[in-house]
Each structure stands twice: as C-alpha cells, then as structure tokens.
C-alpha cells in the first residue's frame, strides 16, 4: 500500500515535470483564475474597510447648557458609556472647546481679539458619542433624550442621515460585489476545470495504455490527482508572488481613495492566510478537476 502510494506520488511528480509545457500552460491559466479570486477578495476587504471607516465616524453630540456642573456631565458620560451599543464617549469641556476654537483660528487675530472681549464661559461643553453600528444609533439617542438629562442639554446633533445614506450605498455595492465575485469565482473554477480537462485529453492515450497493461483505476488515476494537486500548489504560489508587486504599486493610490486602508500592510500581514485560501481553492479544483476529467478515459 505504502509502496503503491509512493509510486503514485513519484509518477505524478514525474508527469508534472516531464510534461513541462502542458504543466506550464495549465498553471498559467489556473494562476490567472486564482488571481481573479484573490482580486475579488481584496476588493471586498477594501469595501469592508471603507464601511468600517464610515461606521467609526458615526456619532451624536450632546451640548450642555453653560450652567451645567461638570460632575453632572461626567456622571452622564459614565451612564452613556455603560450602554453596550456605545463604542466611545469623548468629553469636551467648555475650556477644551475654547482651546480648540483658538487653535483653529490661531491665524485670525481679529477673531482671537474678539474672544478676549467676551467674559466667562462662551463654549458649551459636549459629549461626543460614537455608536458601534448604525442600527445602535436610535437607542443611544433615546437614552440621551431621557427626561433626567434633557434639562441639562442645549442641543443634540447627529450625523446619522449622511452616514446612513453612504452605508446604504456601500452595502449595495457589497451585495452586488458579492454576486459578481461568486460569478467570477464560478468562471475561474470553470476555466480551471476546462484547462485540466484539456491537459488530460492530450494524455488520454496514456490512460488507455495504462489500463490495457493491467493498471487498476486508482493506480492510473493517482498520478493525475497528484499532478492536479501540484498544479494547485504552484499556481497559488505564482499568484501570490505576482500579486505582491501589484499590491505594492497600487497601495499608495488606493490609500487616497480609501482613507485608513493600507492594502500592502493587509496583504503582507495576511499573506499566509490569503495563500492558504488560494491553495485550498487551487488544490481542490486541481484534484477534483482531474478526477472528473479522467473518469471518461478510465472506462476501458
């Protein structure tokens, strides 16, 4: 058994090596197909990052009356923070707000001078609350509009509508993208299957001979499965190696369109995972493709 497995493996590798041109052609087509799958994966990562980025910008700001004591605000901050749907709460005190204002208009002496004319607190303190998900927004707004807080508040400001609309667009793009990626993956799989079918078609006489000299189906099929497996390994490696310079070159321009996304970083830190995905896809297609393709020629 071990002997037979060893022979099957050795023969498969010998086929792979000696049918050099056929192997190269098959691997090239498979690498292109896998590149399609990898491309789809990376685009979906970009879209996901964009959506996360937008979600992190979701917030609601509560402004407090000037006479609200700070401890009341801080108490409310703790109450808000205790809620599960709240991701972050930032307290901007009246002085902080002033400092920010001064910083923003540090070039404009007129404005700064007019500030000096005013006395006491002029900026309202605020809590800036970030939600985990767009759907978490409503409970947060309900909570801060609780009657025990309302007397302290001067106004509540949300950016929900804009974010909602953008999210809807991106979700739409992702749904369509998912459909397109399924279709592209199916095309990639079909291309691989057909390429393997043609590779085995050119070797059909060999299969026939092996059967006629007394090879069992598994003994004849085995080396082709090993070959299919090797196609999967090599084509997944080729795809990853070719993608590296591509991602390297595209990453800076992509960062401009998708702020906060470093595709190169993502690619490098997930290199092994991405390769494993392609490896599994490639080898499964290679082995099953070979198995289906050879079936017909084993009926001798």
């Amino acid at each position, binding site marked *: 058994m071990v*002997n*037979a497995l060893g*022979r099957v493996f050795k023969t498969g590798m*010998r*086929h792979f090596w*000696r*049918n050099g041109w056929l192997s190269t052609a098959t691997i090239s087509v498979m690498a292109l197909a896998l590149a399609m799958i990898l491309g789809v994966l990376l685009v979906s990562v970009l879209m996901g990052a964009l959506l996360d980025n937008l979600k992190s910008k979701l917030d609601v700001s509560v402004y407090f009356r000037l006479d609200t004591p700070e401890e009341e605000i801080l108490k409310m901050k703790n109450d808000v923070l205790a809620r599960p749907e709240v991701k972050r709460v930032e307290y901007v005190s009246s002085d902080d707000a002033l400092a920010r204002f001064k910083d923003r208009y540090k070039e404009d002496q007129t404005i700064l001078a007019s500030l000096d004319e005013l006395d006491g607190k002029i900026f309202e303190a605020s809590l800036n609350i970030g939600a985990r998900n767009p759907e978490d927004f409503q409970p947060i707004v309900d909570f801060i509009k609780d009657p025990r807080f309302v007397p302290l508040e001067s106004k509540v400001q949300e950016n929900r509508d804009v974010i909602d609309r953008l999210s809807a667009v991106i979700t739409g793009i992702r749904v369509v993208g998912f459909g397109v990626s399924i279709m592209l993956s199916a095309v990639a799989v079909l291309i691989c299957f057909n390429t393997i079918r043609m590779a085995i078609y050119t070797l059909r*006489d*060999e299969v*026939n*001979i*092996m*059967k*006629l*000299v*007394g*090879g*069992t*189906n598994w*003994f004849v099929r085995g080396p082709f499965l090993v070959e299919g497996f090797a196609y999967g390994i090599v084509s997944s490696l080729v795809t990853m190696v070719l993608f590296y310079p591509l991602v390297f070159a595209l990453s800076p321009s992509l960062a401009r369109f998708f702020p906060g996304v470093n595709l190169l970083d993502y690619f490098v830190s997930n290199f092994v995972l991405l390769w494993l995905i392609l490896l599994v896809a490639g080898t499964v297609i290679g082995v099953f493709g070979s198995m289906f393709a050879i079936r017909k020629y084993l009926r*001798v």
Partner: protein
Amino acid sequence: MILFSNVSKYYNSHPALEGINLKISQGEFVSIVGQSGAGKSTLLKLLIAEEAPTQGRIYLDDKEITSISRTELPYLRRRIGTVFQDFKLLANRTAFENVAFAMEVAGSPRKEIAQDVPQILQLVGLEQKAGQFPRELSGGEQQRVAIARALVHQPDIIIADEPTGNLDPLNTWDVIRLLMKIHELGTTIILATHDREIINTINKRVISFDKGRVVRDEEGGRYIL
C-alpha cells in the same frame, strides 16, 4: 485454455463477429488471419475485455471473461500480455520505465523490478537503450520494448495485434523470431496479422476470418483467403 462459445459482436446492428466457437490450448501458437474488417482485432479486444460481446461467453481457464467485474479486470489483463500495431508505449517514459510500468501496476517490489527489467530488455536486445524515450527509438525497437513490457510479468498468454504492421521486413522478422522464442518457453501466442509470408513460413495453427466468421481453422495452415 481459451474458449469462445457462440460469441457475436455487433456495432449498431452491424456484425463484427458472428457465432464464433474456438478453443485455444495452453502453449499453442495461433495465427488469426483475415482482411481488414474481418473481425481479428475485435476478437482480441473481447479477449482482454476492452469490449464486451453482444452475445456468447468467453472463458480463460475456468474464469468467464464476459462476466468479469471491473475490479477483477486489471488482474485478468496482467495474465495476458498485449502487443499492438501502434506499440502503445508511454511517450514520457523511457524504455526501462515502460517495461517497469507493467510490473509496478502488479505491485512488484522495486528490487524485483530492478532485477527483471534489464533481463527482459536483454532478451529483446535493447539493454543498451534502456534510458531512451520511445521517440528516440526506431519502430522495430519500439515494438521490442512493447514485447518486453508484455512479457515482463510472465503472462500465460501473449496477444499480438498486427505487431509487424508498421515495421520493415528486417524488423518484422526480428519481432516474429522473438515471439517464436517466447512461445518455446511455454507461453500461448495469439498473433493477428495479414502478412502472408509470416503465416506461410512459421507453419503453425491458422484461423482465417472473413466478414466476422471463422472460415478456416487448420494446424500448419497457410494464408488462404
């Protein structure tokens, strides 16, 4: 012993063989003759179960070939060595590897393969060309590799389907002499050919086919159609 009992084969209701009854004993040298389309190749294909008969039964010793299962089929084929007109060598394997393949499929240990293959290649006079690929060998040499392959697991029967069809006269006689030598060692030989000179020279049993039927079966027969 090989027995054909009332065997017929039809391709789309066109008869290739009809009502064949034949008995070939162990150790015989039998020539099957007939024009193209007479049914020679079909008969041999039925024997190695490459095709199934439309009706009738075929036995190899006490085993009925016609009812053999797909799992038993490879073991049947290892008892029969086959030589084809177009050699049917594996293009990507050397002469040595082509011969070794027949032993590998039978699960022979590596040591035995390393020992037997050179001996068989010596028997067919190709020990010097063991490392060459089929494309690097002449037609005659390729056919001798094919014979070595058919011979290497010491089959009871060797079937040769027009083995000299693609060879020049010199190589033809090399192959025939080789088959005669193998026959002398006790192997049953079934030789399909339409080479008149071979049949008339070797003076063995001749079964003549015409339009799918046996028209003559003679010991020491001659090529008459």
